[in-house]
């Protein structure tokens, strides 16, 4: 994949928020890109999935890097950095690169860290290209089991696992997120195996366990049930029994 560093591509942006405490270290300015190659049943922002065409009630915008920099400048004194989320951020790799490069090159913004929140499905070369301008990535691992992953996301998890390993090798893996749906991907044996796989990548990995929340999600053929607090804590215990992960339960 070639990345054109001379021109400034526009991004297809679903929305931005100035302050977020749940998208990486410190307070962050977050850009949500429109369009995702996954079709997760549990997606809580399903309006950001379509990559083009109108989305009823929502107004994704083609946005120039400079336009975003203007908004980021306003928030800059209050944030540790920016995070690009989605949708799927890596579906627009040229824009992602251009935005990060512009932030890093800007006199007033250069100190901000640049993070990506991703489903991890992209070609590994996207991470290689981003490496000079990116500070970290948060990757969602929907499920270690390929069949369950296929059923809940419509996609193979091979590239996701490869991304996690590759980002760790590049020193760019900030956090892996496990979104648990009761009765779907929270079985103890499965979590045990997930822990073993993650520990093989990094024993002290930051792992965020997120309980599925029905709010915002679409109707689904598979029954989607919110896991109890106890179930989430039990999942954390299962992982902790495998390796000394840095675990946060949300």
């Amino acid at each position, binding site marked *: 994949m070639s990345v054109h560093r001379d021109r400034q591509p526009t991004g297809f942006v679903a929305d931005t928020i100035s302050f977020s405490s749940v998208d990486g270290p410190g307070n962050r300015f977050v850009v949500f890109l429109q369009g995702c190659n996954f079709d997760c049943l549990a997606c809580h922002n399903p309006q950001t999935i379509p990559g083009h065409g109108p989305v009823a009630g929502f107004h994704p915008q083609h946005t120039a890097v400079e336009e975003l920099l203007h908004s980021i400048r*306003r928030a800059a004194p209050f944030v540790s950095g920016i995070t690009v989320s989605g949708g799927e951020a890596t579906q627009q790799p040229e824009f992602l690169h251009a935005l990060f490069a512009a932030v890093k090159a800007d006199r007033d913004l250069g100190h901000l860290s640049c993070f990506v929140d991703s489903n991890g499905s992209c070609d590994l070369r996207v991470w290689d290209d981003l490496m000079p301008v990116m500070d970290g990535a948060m990757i969602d691992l929907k499920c270690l089991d390929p069949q369950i992953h296929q059923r809940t996301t419509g996609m193979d998890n091979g590239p996701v696992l490869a991304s996690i390993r590759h980002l760790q090798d590049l020193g760019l893996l900030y956090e892996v997120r496990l979104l648990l749906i009761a009765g779907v991907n929270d079985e103890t044996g499965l979590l045990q195996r997930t822990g073993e796989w993650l520990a093989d990548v990094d024993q002290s990995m930051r792992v965020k366990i997120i309980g599925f929340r029905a709010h915002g999600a679409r109707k689904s053929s598979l029954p989607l049930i919110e896991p109890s607090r106890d179930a989430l804590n039990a999942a954390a215990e299962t992982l902790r029994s495998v390796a000394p992960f840095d675990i946060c339960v949300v």
Partner: protein
Amino acid sequence: MDGAELQSLATEVVRDATLGYDQKIRRLAALATDAVAYPDLSPACREALDKRIICDMFEGNAPYTPRYVLPDYERAFRQGLTFLELAPPADLDDALAFLQIMYAHVPSVTTYPVYLGDLDKLLERFVTDDISDDQLDRKLRRFWIGIDRMQPDAFAHLDLGPHDSRITRSIFRVERSLRQAVPNITLKVDPETTPDDLVLDGVRTVFETGKPHFVNHPMMVGDHGEHYAAVSCYNSLKIGGGAHTLVRLNLKEAALAHVGSSDEFLATTLTKYVELTAELGEARTRSLVEDQRFFETHWLATEGLVDIDRFSAMFGVFGLAECVNLLMAHDGRDRGGEARYGHDAGADALAVRLIDRVAELVAARPMPYCEGGNGRSYLHSQGGIDIDDAVTAGTRIPVGDEPAMLDHIGTCAPLHHYFDAGVSDIFHVDETAVRNPEAVVDIIRGAFTSGMRDFTFNLDGNEFVRITGYLVRKSDLATIADDGMVRHTSDQLAAGSEDAYHLTERAVKRVGCHERAPR
């Protein structure tokens, strides 16, 4: 007040089942002060006071103590106290006992001290290496319980920072474990010298107890010099000094009394009411100094622990939001209520013009006995009192109408530098921040870079609720609603404010996103 009215009010107080014994004594004393003659006022000033366009905070007709007294505890430690027959403290236990005794004798309008000292600076020299953290925590814990039980008033306020110290860390630990409404606390933050880790510890303490407030130390030093403190409810004043009185101008009522454009308001109505407010402040200050002769008679003054030259009067404003919105309508620019304070650049710009004009007028109005303010009143954005109804505190955006936090700060920050005697805006953060307190540290640092003087936030779902600037426990408010008796006098004021303002319904400021509702 005639004799019959006094009798009836006093009867009400003595029979009030929700008031404790001490609280009854204090109410009766306040009634007696209201029974003596008010200082002489011009008819226009009296009329504005009666209409509550200007307000004396119900301090009583004959002020016999300054409203806010900030004793120089440092000097007291050095020289000891003649009146109270206390020698300079030799160790930490001495120092804590010294303070506890002195607190019982520091006057204020609430009868409880509004300033308890910059405790880190006062006590750090006594924290020797042979005192372990655990021992230190136990000593301070005992002292803390003493403050809450003996000065049961959330306006009792102490200061910490900007430097790190074992005392500050211990106080934060004790605060988190005790979870008391009293004392109120300010952490002075100097972006250059205060370590992130100390601010972070402060933020974690807010998650538990709603305290401390964070103040912009360099801005405060610029206005008052190094020896300042934040006391009571966002009142920044000089240590060894204070404020004789606080009078306040209700900008909403002033706008309601005005006919014409905002330009005319600035030129005529506002000018008139600023002068009437200043007249009220001058009359009350003269009464305190000349008639009651506080500074000639009180031991704090005669022993040099307060100096009249470090005092001024406070000129407060409130109801800016309603004032701006009314004037936007007068100007035909309000777009049916859309273009209002906190939500429109034109409205926000008018707010700055208004406060700039007030500051200009106050700076041009000489005041007697106000050397602390170079012969002028201090300007203060007044955070409201229990009887305020349908008018917004100080220069805040109305509760429930606050925009997203960055816009909120954008509206308020340009006003903060005007208010040398304090200003406050209260932000709510949702519970996601508990797992990422660094996010709040980022915001605090940004707030100070943006020129805010004070940053105060509440965590959603906390047991504590901030009323005008002080804290109460929700469980205590519930007790009052059930006609029960509570220890803290500030709780009773809070119950009034909560009824009038629904402060606990303040709009939640998102710092998190992941669960986004469709727009």
